[in-house]
């Protein structure tokens, strides 16, 4: 019974992520209009379910007359790109630190633990805003900044799982067989903690997407005219009391995508029997 429900949730998550990945990859082929093309004569057209919609623009247009559906699809591309890139950067940092700390122990582990503590004390949103504000907003700067900030969960999980694996018999066997430290790390430890790290990765993608949206919403994330969902909500904010759909549409997309990624992550966690709580 419980299994069945969990399975459905996981598949729903996988389907959402699949659709988003497809939209992100093939955005240029899918969009009905140029997402950057402004048409001031067609500003704030309503979406198809409302009276007086334009069949040319299924989800209506924004305050500059740009097609909302096209911007939404490109926004998905930006979200996915940021989520995946940030996770690769933060994963590389966090996994390296966590595995080294957990495997070597001693002084190295003290340094790793201290770095995690320090990182947790930093207010992420504020620091990211400050860095982007000082260096200027661009996709690259944003992705590097978030990547440098969001590694701590990777480090925590990699560290604790490495510590568990380190003391298992097959690692002792590898030592006895004369394997080098690096051989053991790459050949024995990493493959055995990989499933935990995959689960963390999905959660981090979701977190990075939410953070990017928040930063873009505050005006220091993805620079305009790029159609980030957070930025779309910020630009539409002035019109939300008269036409609430302008913030509903990108917000629902953001919510559904993050929910989908989390559902998939939870499903993977159950499937692997992995623990990701720090």
């Amino acid at each position: 019974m419980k299994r069945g429900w969990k399975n459905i949730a996981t598949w729903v998550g996988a389907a959402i992520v699949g659709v988003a990945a497809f939209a992100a990859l093939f955005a240029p082929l899918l969009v009905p209009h140029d997402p950057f093309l402004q048409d001031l004569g067609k500003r704030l057209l309503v979406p198809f379910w409302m009276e007086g919609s334009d069949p040319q623009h299924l989800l209506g247009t924004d305050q500059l007359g740009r097609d909302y559906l096209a911007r939404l699809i490109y926004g998905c591309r930006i979200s996915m790109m940021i989520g995946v890139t940030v996770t690769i950067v933060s994963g590389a940092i966090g996994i390296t630190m966590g595995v080294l700390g957990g495997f070597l122990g001693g002084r190295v582990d003290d340094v790793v633990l201290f770095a995690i503590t320090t990182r947790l004390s930093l207010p992420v949103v504020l620091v990211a805003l400050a860095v982007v504000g000082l260096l200027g907003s661009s996709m690259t700067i944003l992705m590097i900044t978030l990547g440098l900030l969001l590694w701590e969960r990777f480090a925590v999980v990699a560290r604790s799982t490495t510590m568990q694996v380190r003391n298992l018999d097959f690692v002792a066997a590898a030592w006895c067989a004369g394997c080098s430290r690096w051989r053991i790390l790459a050949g024995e430890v990493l493959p055995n903690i990989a499933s935990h790290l995959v689960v963390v990765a999905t959660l981090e993608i979701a977190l990075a997407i939410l953070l990017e949206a928040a930063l873009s919403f505050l005006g220091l994330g993805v620079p305009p005219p790029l159609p980030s969902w957070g930025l779309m909500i910020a630009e539409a904010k002035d019109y939300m009391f008269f036409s609430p759909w302008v913030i509903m549409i990108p917000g629902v997309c953001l919510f559904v995508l993050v929910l989908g990624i989390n559902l998939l992550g939870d499903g993977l966690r159950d499937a692997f029997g992995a623990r990701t709580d720090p």
Partner: protein
Amino acid sequence: MLRFFIRRLVVALLVAATVMTLAFIMTRLSGDLATSIAGPSATQEDIEAVRKAYGLDRPVITQFFDWVGRATMGDLGDSFFFKRRVTELIGERMPVTLTLGLTGLVIALVISLPLGILAAVKENTALDRAVQIVALLGQAMPSFWLGLLLMIVFGLKLGWLPISGTDSWESFIMPGVVLAFSAVPALTRLTRAGMIQAMGSDYIRTARAKGLSRASILLKHALRNAAIPVVAIAAVQLGFMLGGSIVIEQVFALHGVGFLGWESIAKNDFPVVQAVVLVLAVIYVGLTMLADMLNAVLDPRLRGA
């Protein structure tokens, strides 16, 4: 126990020192601060004047030790934009952020404790699943968007609550709810897991064997034990909330510390930016330390550690 506290204190001070260094480096990332402060229309003389006035003509290392030395003594410098002491500015704005953070925490606990207990008692039933779905939904909700939705519904359509400002306690309801949302999933899960673990333990079996009532077992025995990690995480969550309130303060135009940080970033007012980062980090470090101590006090088993 004393050794444990001293160790924690030393680590906390080291973290604060590291954050101080990071905040200093962060504000120097853009290269020449004087040029950005003077603005795009400034002449070379203006830039030089700014550089002299703010002490930016000194070697970076001197500037660094000057900032660390003063900050340690509680002097965070002067704001370029407001032309006032940074400590005063932060002191003025802190009550708003603290009120918001505490409101958020109380709302989060009021929601997640009953939900967590309910889910644990009815483990693996439809109710348990419903609670877990609520937690998942909360986790996926972008806080700024939720804030805007609440503004449309309760501010505009129903007209129940003010949509911005800090004039009355009612102004803190919507922002508090939004802030609480970020903590509810973690707190609910933790309460549920703690309760399930506690309910399966020996002392609950003993309590049952003694013939205690269900309510007494649940609230007096199980909850007290399950609450220990929740109290600790609640303190940590408050720290995260204060740091994350910047988004919500901006949405609801609450002029707290986060809002100050956001304004100052936009105005290149770097003494304020580095001070806000430092203050928020120190508060977080203090709260985690408090959490550890609370843990040790509440759970005698941990005191040996």
